[in-house]
């Protein structure tokens, strides 16, 4: 059975496998290895995923969603047509599309997968990723932290050297830092830190805001469609700014076409507050590893957002080292995840490689602390597994009841670094029955076990009865129960999906429609003519003609789209 590896990103997703030649990325129906993490409904109410959906973000903003990874494990609903979906379900649709691509490419059924997640994803978000996999009909064998995967991709080439390197992963929506040490074929993650709410999309938002200021009061009046268009242009301008000093865009407000410009200097200014946020996680990872920045030999940049010169400069200044970029920052995580797949399957090319990872945050429980006066104060955090402990790990603490004769305890499980639980993240609450004992305080053990995928299991054993309660964290507002997952899986199964073999043509149409939105006058009417032409070619159903028309159309669209950005 083939084990595939999936990089389920905020902006783009990839699927890969480990072969004799090493990690290989699998292209989608359009021939791209990057599939945009966007989901939408077509006009015929069929589900569409990928580039086509991304284009329709501009033309059909109400029937398309992207950037839902940020809401994994939350109760936020996305309304698509008549039904509402959770972020897990939208992710499942992306996973299903990737799965179909892999099956077509490899010629076998794919049911087992490894999925990469940001190192800083908490327990709820990790379980949500598992659930998404399940809803897509995949058995998720393992979750791997994204920076660790990136390090695997880089480290494989130098597995026999002794090296310490820092992986800085700024993706579409999340920021992760990991420190790795390689010795004798062992890849050891020393420390991880991060920010689950910082990524390239925030830089795009900063550009949108800047354009908004330039537009003035008009900006407030824009409808959803125009907003989508502006964001799309801002995103492309941001990418272009990595090459040029100044970028202009032509924006169709609905009434007229406005020219907006942004210089690199201005961009650096509007993104300064985001750049500042990079510092703390880097600092923390280094100090947690018991190191100083000067002990680091190599800096590896991962994630599309690290292409921005302002990010590179800042990292260089902080670490006084020039970053490496041998591998494509968009591909690294998927390639590393494939290496992990090879490791799990004990591929012979990876015989003498072992990887160990850490738990990036402190996990613990809520406790009440006794005052000198005899009263109790609740709300204190008691760490059980300290952050950056090597996993798998199992740790135990012994607590006792606050009162004699107490028959129940409510145990709050938290993640975080603050001494008070109110400042930490609640992972779940557990109710445990305690045998009634009016004479003494009952003692009980709380054991936390954190496995290689970063999933937490809590076992509470009461001393007197020796009864062990294995507790799965459920009932958190953001997590789904097993029954609900299988119910949603069946519902997703029923959805009509836009046929894959037509994806290439549909992508051209959605691209034409997007271009149409942003143009005025002659160009606009030219596009609508082309649209009619292309549709008539499609109706003739001659494969060679269609192929020719498609490549011609894409070339022409490249040209038209370049006119937007100058």
């Amino acid at each position, binding site marked *: 059975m083939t084990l595939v590896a999936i990089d389920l990103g905020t902006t783009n997703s990839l699927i890969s496998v480990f072969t004799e030649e090493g990690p290989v990325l699998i292209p989608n129906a359009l021939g791209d290895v990057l599939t945009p993490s966007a989901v939408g409904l077509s006009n015929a109410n069929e589900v569409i995923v990928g580039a086509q959906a991304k284009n329709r973000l501009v033309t059909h903003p109400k029937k398309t969603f992207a950037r839902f990874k940020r809401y994994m494990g939350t109760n936020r609903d996305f309304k698509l047509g008549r039904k509402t979906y959770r972020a897990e379900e939208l992710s499942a649709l992306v996973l299903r599309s990737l799965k179909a691509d892999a099956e077509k490419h490899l010629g076998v059924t794919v049911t087992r997968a490894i999925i990469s997640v940001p190192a800083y994803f908490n327990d709820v978000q990790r379980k949500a990723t598992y659930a998404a996999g399940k809803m897509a009909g995949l058995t998720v064998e393992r979750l791997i932290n994204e920076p660790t995967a990136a390090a695997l991709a880089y480290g494989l080439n130098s597995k026999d050297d002794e090296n310490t390197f820092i992986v800085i992963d700024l993706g579409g929506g999340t920021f992760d830092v990991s420190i790795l040490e390689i010795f004798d074929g*062992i890849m050891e993650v020393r420390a991880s830190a991060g920010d689950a709410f910082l990524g390239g999309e925030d830089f795009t938002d900063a550009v949108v805001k800047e354009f908004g200021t330039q537009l003035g009061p008009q900006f407030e009046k824009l409808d959803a469609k125009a907003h989508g268009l502006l964001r799309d242009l801002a995103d492309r301008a941001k990418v272009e700014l990595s090459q040029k000093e100044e970028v202009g865009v032509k924006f169709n407000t609905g009434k007229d076409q406005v020219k907006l410009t942004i210089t690199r200097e201005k961009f650096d200014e509007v993104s300064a507050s985001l750049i500042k946020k990079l510092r703390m996680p880097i600092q923390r990872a280094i100090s947690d590893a018991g*190191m100083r920045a000067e002990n680091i030999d190599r800096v590896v940049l991962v994630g599309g957002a690290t292409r921005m010169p302002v990010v590179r400069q800042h990292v260089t200044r902080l670490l006084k080292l020039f970053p490496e970029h041998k591998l494509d920052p968009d591909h690294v995580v998927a390639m590393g995840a494939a290496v992990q797949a090879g490791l799990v399957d004990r591929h012979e090319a990876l015989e003498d490689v072992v990887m160990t990872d850490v738990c990036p945050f402190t996990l613990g429980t809520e406790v009440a602390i006794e005052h000198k006066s005899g009263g109790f104060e609740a709300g204190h955090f008691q760490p059980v597994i300290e952050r950056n402990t090597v996993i798998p790990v*199992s740790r135990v603490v012994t607590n006792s009841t606050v009162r004699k004769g107490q028959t129940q305890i409510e145990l709050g499980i938290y993640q975080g670094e603050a001494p008070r639980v109110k400042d930490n993240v609640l992972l779940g609450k557990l109710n445990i029955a305690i045998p009634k004992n009016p004479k003494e305080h009952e003692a009980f053990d709380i054991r936390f076990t954190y496995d290689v995928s970063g999933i937490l299991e809590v076992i509470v054993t009461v001393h007197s009865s020796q009864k062990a309660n294995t507790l799965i964290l459920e009932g958190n507002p953001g997590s789904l129960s097993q029954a609900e997952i299988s119910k949603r899986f069946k519902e997703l199964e029923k959805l009509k999906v836009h046929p894959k073999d037509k994806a290439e043509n549909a992508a051209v149409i959605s691209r034409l429609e997007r271009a149409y939105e942003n143009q005025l006058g002659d160009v606009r009417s030219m596009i609508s003519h082309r649209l009619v032409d292309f549709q008539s070619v499609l109706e003739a159903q001659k494969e060679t003609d269609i192929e020719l028309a498609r490549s011609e159309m894409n070339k022409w669209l490249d040209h038209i789209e370049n006119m937007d950005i100058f």
Partner: protein
Amino acid sequence: MGLDEATNDQRQIKKAYARKLKEIRPDEDAAGFMALRDAFERARDYAKYADDENGNIAFTDMIFEAVKDDSELEQIAIQSVVNVQISDEDYPLIEKPLGFEERMSTRIQEMLKNPWERSSKSAWDELFEDPELSSLDAEADFKNIMRGTLLSYFGYYDADGHEQNRPRGPKKVSSEVATFMFDKMGWHYPETLSFNQQHEIEWLRQELDVINRDKKPMTELYDDDDENESIFFGFFIVIGLYALYQLASVLFDK
């Protein structure tokens, strides 16, 4: 085992660990791995710190407990304890540009002595934003210097420094400026610092009357549409107030 140089010990322990790890993989034998990891971490720490027989005995015990059949790792570890010396591999000596510490410490002291500068946020900001502090190591060093200088300037090291109700002089730094310093130095939540350092920061916080900053818990960031709720509650509050007003007017009429 030919361990002539003490600095080799860390490497030897790592090598032995690496060999063993290839047999006991973390994803296949979780329990075995946990025992091995425990042994490794303790071996590493003992090699670093142990300087008497105690370390030797404790370590041997630990090895027998954890990896009973692993005589190799044990041998190396015992060797490493015999040749004890603190290795500078993981805790390297701090190397800085010459005079950095003195320069910075003098600068901070001068600012503290100058009544205008010490109460000016922008003067402090200028110091904190000094381009010389832009690298991570320099910043970490600077924070240590800043902490040390403040502590000694405000009398932490004086004989009565820890007494709760000792007489205090007039406040030299306003709590607003002190809070600003804490903001800039990241001392409101000094989670990355050692226990002692956290204690020192806590002392400074009380001494300088720093205003506490509440950290936003991460979960709050999930919700984008909170305004609706406040409008909703606001609505009830308005209704409540109106009802009270009605009630009051009825009562007063009587």
